[in-house]
């Protein structure tokens, strides 16, 4: 089978400039893959958002009495999460200058900010005075924020992974840092989703 595969291909070899077996490796397509996946993932949030908007449209009072949202803490949380998107970009800028120390510093700060966000979320859950099952609004509230929180948690794991791998000298450098960029893209995604979510659940319930 092998020999037949090679013998007949002489013509294509001319056009193909076959210099050994370097066409066995292809370009790094992981960023493409991640972006495609996130486009799909955003539609899962899209489904939840659509459900939320539909229930809101069908309700006389939204949110129902006794399940109003708190605003101060989530606003602080929002500021932290949005800022962290800039911080993580500093890490990406650092590695493009081959500054692994800078990468570790900025990713470390992002990690801390993400953890504070999650802690804030947990504190909010504990102090709200209503739970998952109170009414359809609280159902939506906990599902949406919880599902987003899960994504934040995954983002933290990705950042931890980057920091862990950056211990090894030369693992990331100015020309090889796709993993760093992927963690950053994912983090921006989590941030963008939060901005939509914050607008829908918190800001728009004021009106």
């Amino acid at each position, binding site marked *: 089978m092998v020999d037949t595969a090679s013998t007949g291909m002489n013509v294509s070899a001319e056009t193909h400039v076959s210099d050994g077996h370097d066409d066995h490796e*292809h370009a790094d397509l992981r960023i493409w893959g991640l972006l*495609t996946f996130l486009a799909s993932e955003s539609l899962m949030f899209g489904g939840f958002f659509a459900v939320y908007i539909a229930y809101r449209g069908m*309700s006389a009072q939204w949110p129902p009495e006794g399940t109003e949202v708190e605003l101060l803490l989530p606003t602080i949380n929002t500021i932290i999460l949005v800022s962290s998107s800039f911080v993580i970009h500093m890490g990406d800028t650092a590695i493009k200058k081959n500054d692994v120390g800078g990468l570790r510093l900025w990713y470390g700060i992002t990690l801390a900010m993400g953890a504070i966000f999650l802690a804030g979320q947990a504190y909010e859950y504990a102090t709200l005075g209503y739970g998952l*099952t109170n009414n359809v609004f609280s159902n939506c509230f906990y599902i949406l924020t919880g599902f987003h929180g899960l994504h934040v948690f995954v983002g933290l794991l990705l950042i931890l992974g980057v920091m862990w791998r950056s211990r090894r000298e030369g693992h990331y450098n100015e020309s090889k840092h796709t993993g760093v960029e992927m963690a950053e893209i994912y983090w921006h995604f989590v941030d963008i989703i939060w901005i939509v979510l914050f607008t829908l659940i918190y800001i728009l319930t004021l009106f």
Partner: protein
Amino acid sequence: MPSHEGRTSWRWYEYFTFNVDHKVIGIQYLVTSFFFYLVGGAMAVAMRTELATPDPDFLDPSLYNAFLTNHGTIMIFLWIVPAAIGGFGNYLLPLMIGARDMAFPKLNAIAFWLNPPAGLLIMGSFFFGGAQAGWTSYPPLSLITAPTAQSMWILAIVLVGTSSILGSVNFLVTLIKMRVPSMNWNSLPLFCWAMFATSILALVSTPVLAAGMVLLLFDINFGTSFFKPEAGGHVVMYQHLFWFYSHPAVYLMILPIFGIMSEVISIHSRKPIFGYKAIAYSSLAICVIGLFVWVHHMFTSGTPPWMRLFFTISTMIVAVPTGVKIFSWVATLWGGKIRLNSAMLFAIGLLAMFVLGGISGVTLGTAPVDIHVHDTYYVVAHFHYVLFGGSVFGIYSAVYHWFPKMTGRFMNEKLGILHFVLTFIGTNLTFLPMHSLGLHGMPRRVAMYDPQFTTINQLCTFGAFVLGLSVIPFFINAAWSWTRGEKADGNPWNALTLEWTTASPPIIENWEVLPTVETGPYEYGMGKEIPNKSEPKVSVSAQ
């Protein structure tokens, strides 16, 4: 390439492992899904046996409900989708575009290995009574029957959904970025165009189903009330989330099959395909329009008149690109030097069956008709014509067509023709009379029916037994031909697409030296010499 250093083919046991070769993964998908086809088929035969008499005397009615639910679930999520998309998509797509593998081989293997656990969850759910709310699992029924089994069912759907998303990411990136440099979009084989449209559709619709499944899971297990009207929820909300995926899902199950049809019909008519661009772009049109027709499943769910109007019209429109394909295939057959082998028989059978299913689909998509026949056997007749007469015929056709590529051996034609005849007769005996049952008002999803329907039901049951028998020659044929069939060379059908430019079965990494595209994929007799068996094998692409 560490694990197969110096080898050109896999050892047999490596087909049972976490293998990242797209060809191995394709075969893993195919074999696994054929297994579930038999499981789902056995459930169907049991149900038809029950329906041979008006009284529920063969199966316990709740077991009947579990069978009808899981028959549908298995046939869709563990048979047609993984066989057509996972099986043929993975096996053929890199070969057709001159790639050595998919863009993300490991991800590809992960996507496959999500399927067996899903199958185990479905089978395991029978220890807890089995999910009984139909494959659509509408609340409130899905909230109150067999909660453990229903939850397992949901987890299985989420697993195969994740598999589908990961697979689609892979297909899309591979198609866009991994084509051999000499292949542009206008020389892309039509199967690849179909996979392109399929992947976009899966990426857009599957996550919405996942959202619906999560909410249903929470309603069943964690006390939320998204779909509980007594607590402020809304049952129709679930139907929207479900059909936003599950209508496009019918295109997920038929678009790859359309791609297979374009390959098989052109190659075995030995004639250029009619309307290459029309077929390619109509796949994209189906993908886009198919996202805006889902409410035609919900005309009786208190849907407001403007919605009925909008979705009736959009459903009429989505039939147009499908018609474009049908006419293009007929025009390809016209005047062709037709090779009437098993692959071609199933393709022509598909044309006939799918036109019938398509026409009954247009009637069902019309709100005034649908309101009368909703939830009757007319619906069952319709979707079995498109899913069995369409998708399953297409998978069979593809197996006969690409079996020589996958194994290096032909399937036996006599057994193949026997298989086709039995399947064709069985399909029409089983599903044609169901139109009449439905129009006379027999509801679907019942173990017991009015005695006036007995004769027609017995006809359907007889047809189902014929269908059950029809798989026997197929499996004997496949098992026997795999090791003992007549040997096939690299390009037994004299085809022009790239998968035929390598050995049969292809070596690991597909080619020693990548092929070059010099003609369009279907340019038979267009001034280019068509290679034949007497020439050295695999020289095809180089002509």
